[in-house]
């Protein structure tokens, strides 16, 4: 069960995160943070981080351009994490069966919120004509209320009344529909592919194809190597323990993404410095693909 105080905290966070995303943008309005905080509130950070991280990758590059409504990954993560913890649902399954559908449905409350603000916009116009600035402030901030309610209402309703539904789903997935559960688990692993593909649609892939290949191959080779070495190290340790032999071995972790990012940064830096040198030469002019800065 989800306790009442957890429902209140999560509902408050749902309102906070959209304001964060619209304004000061601390990253608290991201799916991965949503998973993190929901996990903390529910008392299972690892599950929250897993669902939030997977959702974040799924929506990388989705609708960051110009005011379009996009799937509400933050609320989807919140609901999926809360119920994964409270019903003991498998995180991958929660992501696929709860997170994504909830995120997609909540597009409509987002649209409703943005639509409601149109009326407040007209009230602001009227306040300007009357030069009633106190009223302007109020009508302007009613916009924030509809933004927050567009998240808080559905999240609250889902958390307060969704438990029986989710428990029924969990029971079915562990029982008669185990094959579907297996499929959902696979889907959880496959979803980030969409995020990457969407992102590649926005990035100048053709121009930078060499870096795409480098990134993929470096991480694919090192990742496989690290995983296998960690596996071997584990086996060796087990064998050594069985024969009571002391062995000298390092601490093998999985591939650190930060180090891969640093390689990427180094390449970008080299690219930047070389481009700058070229741009300094009078003839050379570098232009970013798709940027219409000639309007300036």
């Amino acid at each position: 069960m989800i306790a009442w105080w957890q429902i209140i905290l999560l509902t408050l966070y749902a309102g906070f995160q959209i304001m964060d995303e619209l304004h000061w943008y601390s990253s608290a309005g991201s799916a991965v943070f949503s998973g993190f905080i929901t996990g903390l509130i529910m008392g299972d950070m690892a599950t929250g981080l897993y669902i939030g991280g997977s959702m974040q990758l799924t929506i990388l590059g989705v609708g960051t351009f110009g005011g379009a409504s996009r799937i509400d990954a933050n609320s989807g993560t919140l609901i999926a994490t809360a119920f994964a913890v409270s019903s003991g649902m498998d995180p991958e399954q929660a992501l696929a069966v709860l997170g994504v559908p909830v995120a997609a449905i909540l597009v409509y409350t987002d649209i409703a919120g943005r639509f409601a603000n149109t009326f407040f916009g007209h009230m602001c116009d009227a306040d300007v004509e009357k030069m009633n600035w106190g009223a302007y402030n109020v009508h302007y901030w009613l916009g924030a209320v509809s933004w927050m309610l567009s998240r808080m209402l559905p999240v609250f309703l889902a958390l307060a009344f969704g438990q029986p539904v989710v428990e029924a789903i969990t029971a079915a997935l562990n029982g008669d529909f185990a094959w579907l559960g297996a499929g959902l688990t696979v889907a959880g692993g496959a979803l980030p592919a969409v995020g990457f593909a969407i992102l590649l649609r926005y990035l100048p892939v053709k121009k930078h194809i060499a870096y795409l290949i480098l990134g993929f191959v470096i991480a694919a080779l090192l990742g496989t190597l690290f995983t296998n070495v960690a596996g071997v190290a584990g086996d060796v340790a087990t064998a050594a323990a069985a024969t009571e032999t002391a062995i000298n071995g390092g601490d093998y972790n999985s591939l650190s993404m930060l180090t891969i990012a640093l390689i990427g940064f180094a390449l970008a830096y080299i690219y930047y410095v070389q481009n700058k040198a070229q741009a300094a030469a009078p003839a050379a002019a570098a232009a970013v693909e798709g940027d219409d800065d000639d309007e300036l």
Partner: protein
Amino acid sequence: MSSNEKLLPNGTTGYKLTKEDFAQINRRNLIGFQAGWNYERMQHSGYLWIILPQLRKIYGDNTEGLKTAARTHCAPFFNTSNFLNTIITGIDLAIEEEEGLQSLETVASLKTGLMGPLASIGDSIFGSLLPTIFGALAANMAIAGNPLGIFIWIAVNIVVDWFRCKQTHIAYDQGMKLVTTMSDQLNAITDAATVMGVFMVGALVSTNVGIVISAPIDLGGVTVDLQHICNMICPKLVPAALVGAVYWLLGRKGMTSTKAIFIVLIVAIVLGGLGWIAKG
């Protein structure tokens, strides 16, 4: 700031913006610039809201000039990157403070002219590249159970917010000159940052798309391990193929990102349910 204050011929009180004014603008910008966002005119009321106290000082309270200026800002459509909007604000206020009511036409066309280009620069750097690089890093570490990446992202965003406050002053001081110099600089940085973005996507495809082929293929008594064959060609070939397929799918007419997510979801559930592919 009473309505009886003497106005200069240009309709202003001659007020010059102070440090506190900029602090107030930045505060309002970071707290509520998009609170009034709506489908019809998007950030129109927000643009006015963050500079309203300063307009009241510049034109004097309850003057006809103030009403005209406020209407000029609130009435028309406005939408730009919420990371770079205060550049327009800074340039705008420098002009209005100097030239008053006569400048409003210039200011209106300046807003319309700048919002598009700034939106494209801001969206690509702050709306897309930074979330890609740091969001992906945070997500990757989170999946492994480590929240550290989230805090790295927060630290980066604090720097971004500092920059957002700084640019208001700079734009006010330098005016249009800033936009030209900055756009060259930013273009170079954006271009280099896309290199890192593309590289990261490549790396993430191999580490974070977790599927392998598990279809049992029986060729006259000999079982063929397709995944083993793929691994011999290149590790993580299946994830790369999947991303390639979705990339192709997204290029088709009428395809949206939400549709693509559901197509992958359903195909993965079916193939996973049949046991042809597995999480790996």
